[in-house]
């Protein structure tokens, strides 16, 4: 799918505050979000910082999304555990899945293998995006976030969003 369709689906689910750290897989999405005057995209220096900003925005009444590479998920485990999971803060995580099946640079192999289990172990529901399911995947994640007041994640492999 095209980045603009993906972003429109997110906006349709009322997500309106985006903060993240860039990744090649997310490049197109970040470009579309940054050019959209109806919403806000903020670049953070690290992924935990992005989670802190998103939590503040949620407390201020916004519907936040955090974008990051899965290596950044490694940076974020402590922050996720003791902030949005502790206070029950609704938050969507869009995580690019580098190192999937080791078809990537070697620095991504370890995180590529453990990304899904890491999320599962800290109690965050994750769904992998495909060209066919993106509308349903975003709707499902939005429902989990709102009903349970928790973070939920969508994993994005290379080549799914152009």
């Amino acid at each position: 799918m095209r980045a603009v369709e993906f972003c429109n689906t997110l906006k349709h689910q009322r997500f309106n505050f985006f903060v993240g750290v860039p990744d090649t897989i997310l490049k197109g999405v970040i470009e579309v979000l940054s050019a959209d005057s109806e919403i806000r995209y903020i670049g953070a220096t690290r992924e935990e910082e992005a989670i802190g900003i998103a939590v503040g925005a949620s407390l201020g009444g916004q519907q936040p999304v955090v974008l990051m590479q899965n290596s950044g998920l490694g940076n974020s485990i402590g922050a996720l555990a003791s902030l949005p999971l502790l206070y029950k803060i609704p938050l969507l995580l869009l995580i690019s899945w580098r190192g999937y099946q080791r078809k990537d640079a070697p620095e991504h192999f370890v995180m590529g293998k453990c990304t899904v289990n890491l999320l599962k172990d800290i109690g965050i529901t994750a769904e992998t995006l495909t060209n066919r399911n993106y509308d349903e995947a975003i709707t499902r994640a939005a429902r989990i976030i709102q009903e349970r007041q928790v973070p939920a994640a969508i994993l994005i492999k290379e080549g799914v969003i152009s």
Partner: protein
Amino acid sequence: MKGYDAIVRIMRALKGDELVVSANGMISRELFAVRDSPNNFYMLGSMGLASSIGLGLALALPDRKIVVLDGDGNLLMNMGSLATTGDLSPTNLVHVVLDNESYVSTGGQPTACRTVELEKVARSCGFKLSKKIKDAELLEANMGELLRTDGPAFVLVKVESFWKQAPRVSHKPEVIKRRFRDSVKTSVARQRRKCGARL
């Protein structure tokens, strides 16, 4: 000046409608002891992120003053937040750092702030105002002024490495969130009614 006295002075300078985010450890506990309020978001874990939560709030609620009560150990963990805040420059954010040059909650181990001058880092990152204060009277007077001025503002308060044994925050995390969110919602609704009346 002791950390507790600094918090007393700061809270005395506030009008009461400011939203306060406090760093984990002694700062949240002392704030809870000095003045518990639904307008306080006590950060219990996620060390380093008080400044980022404050930034998110400041961007989401441009008509509210946001005060972050941070610690030197906390800010050293998330110095990147100064860069992000300086770059975005929300005018409604006052970032106060109580600097005792140590990690008091965990036994008083020294931090790099015996060398690093955080107020200079903040200025270099683009904060509109940045001050270093050692005197309690001056702190109260300056806080009043900073709350009336467009920021982002940064205040480094040098405090003694000593804290009373304040009790832990007794509210459950979800309660802290719920009453904070309710307080924000109520004031947003009040603001809308006021604007409607003016039209």
